[in-house]
């Protein structure tokens, strides 16, 4: 006990706010909604202290519009909401995907649909995060499963958004958002900050959507002397609308190509006790906590079970599953929805292992005992 680490009690939502500040977010626009409100509350207090801006908007449509604008102006931006607000943001989320605007949306999920159970946990927005906005588009969705990860993944989210010029969504469930735990966060100096690539050619040579070798185009901030056009229409390298099939193809394919290139980096996956596992629990968010607790007891009773923890939901980290499929007899997917990631697991599994789901949509969390019982049944 010589080396003294300083610990503090921190809430998941608070950790997101701290992560945003550590990552260099300097603009937040939002509209308060349970169970995400603490993020706005804390940033309203803290952002102005460090020269950043906080705006409470009239609604969530205004909120996402404001962070898109601020991002184009050169800010690192973030907003926080929950299901009902996330629904309102979908239209402009699509705009941000096509216009390639770096920004982060935090959705602290509550039980839905509609107003639902405002203070209860759920993981019902997994597919909405993937396909909520219309049209074929790539998206990055991260999901923390502890207070510490809420901090770390927020930093990752900001960095990914800057690096890939793409909106990143943090899906947290109410359990992670509201739980408080003893944490020791790394100092600011240890935090990696990624900044979008800016153009270095003369303004008259700049083509705002001409992809560099990385697949991402340098992004000039409005006001820096680079005059260019941004539109929600499919566009050419100059940013002007086009209906030319080749240019349209390059535009949409280019969106996917940059994320495919970063696939391995973007996919955050952890494995626990998987080396000799014959059975696996695949979990994310608060279900990781139940699964971990179940794992300990299942191992004690001699069942060779491990945990595949997804930190990234989209793009779906299929390799995490494929790697272990040859050794697995069964996979259990506990979720606080009717089985949204379960379907992805089925798709990747292609009939190799027995896949079972365990679902809950009543506003309560799945307890470790229920996972233990189900895995024991499967292992028999």
């Amino acid at each position, binding site marked *: 006990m010589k080396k003294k680490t300083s610990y503090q*009690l921190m809430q998941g939502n608070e950790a997101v706010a701290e992560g945003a500040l550590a990552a260099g977010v300097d603009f937040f626009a939002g509209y308060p909604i349970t169970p995400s409100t603490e993020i706005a509350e804390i940033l309203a207090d803290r952002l102005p202290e460090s020269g950043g801006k906080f705006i409470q908007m009239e609604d969530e449509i205004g909120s996402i519009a404001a962070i898109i604008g601020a991002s184009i102006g050169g800010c690192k931006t973030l907003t926080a909401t929950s299901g009902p607000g996330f629904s309102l943001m979908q239209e402009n989320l699509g705009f941000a995907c096509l216009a390639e605007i770096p920004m982060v949306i935090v959705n602290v999920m509550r039980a839905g649909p509609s107003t639902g159970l405002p203070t209860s946990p759920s993981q019902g927005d997994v597919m909405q995060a993937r396909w909520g906005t219309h049209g074929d588009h790539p998206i990055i969705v991260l999901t923390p499963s502890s207070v510490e990860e809420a901090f770390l993944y927020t930093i990752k989210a900001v960095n990914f958004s800057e690096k890939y010029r793409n909106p990143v969504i943090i899906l947290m469930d109410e*359990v992670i958002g509201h739980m*408080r*735990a*003893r944490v020791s966060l790394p100092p600011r100096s240890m935090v990696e900050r990624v900044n979008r690539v800016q153009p270095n050619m003369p303004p008259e040579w700049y083509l705002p959507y001409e992809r560099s070798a990385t697949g991402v185009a340098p992004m000039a901030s409005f006001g820096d002397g680079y005059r260019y056009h941004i539109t929600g229409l499919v566009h050419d390298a100059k940013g002007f609308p086009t209906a030319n099939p080749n240019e349209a193809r390059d535009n949409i394919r280019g969106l996917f190509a940059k994320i495919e290139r970063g696939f391995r980096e973007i996919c955050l996956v952890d494995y626990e006790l998987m080396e000799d596992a014959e059975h696996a629990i695949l979990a994310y968010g608060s279900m990781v*906590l139940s699964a971990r607790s179940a794992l*300990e007891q299942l191992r004690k009773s001699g069942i060779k079970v491990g945990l595949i923890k997804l930190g990234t939901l989209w793009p779906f980290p299929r390799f995490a599953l494929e790697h272990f499929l040859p050794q697995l007899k069964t996979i259990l997917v506990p979720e606080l929805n009717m089985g949204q990631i379960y379907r992805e697991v089925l798709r990747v599994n292609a009939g190799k292992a027995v896949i079972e789901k365990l679902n809950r949509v009543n506003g309560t*969390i799945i307890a470790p005992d229920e996972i233990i019982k189900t895995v024991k049944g499967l292992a028999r």
Partner: protein
Amino acid sequence: MKQTKTEIRLAGSGGQGLITAGIILAEAAILDNKNVVQSQSYGPEARGGASRAEIIIADGPIFFPKATWVDILLAMSQKASDQYSFDLKAGGIFIVDTTYVNQIPTSSALAIPISSRTREKFGKELFSNIVALGVICEATKVVSSQALQAAVSARVPAGTEKMNTDALAFGKKLAKEAIKHNNGVVAEIIEADS
């Protein structure tokens, strides 16, 4: 050394300050150099709905953040007492605020009119949650007295430290009286752990 884990649930109505009490208790546990997780559950109302805070204090890692079988239960409403008394472990400590709990399901509960005694002493029930923390500390020793005092002072609004310190001491006094009245018996858990 035996690894210990204590699950605590503070339950009552929204507005009684139970979530704040839960946060303070968790911060006290950190000052005691323990691992801790605190979670909460409440209704959409600002006041009056069911509200509960849960705190798990352990020497080792804590996986699942919710309390399942509780070692310490504080009930500050009849509904909370009715709903959660079955979740108490055998030998667990059950503290009821008899201001709001008329039907106590077991004679082994530590029955104290926390809210009404707080009102008599301080003129309002505002400090009931801190008084309750004093009761919990004295009856269970789940956190050290010094850590709790420090956590209370750090969390309460500036200018109210003195009142809150008095409230904490008052809670301890109430617990001592009640334990004496119970012939010195709180519950078996204290003896099992020491």
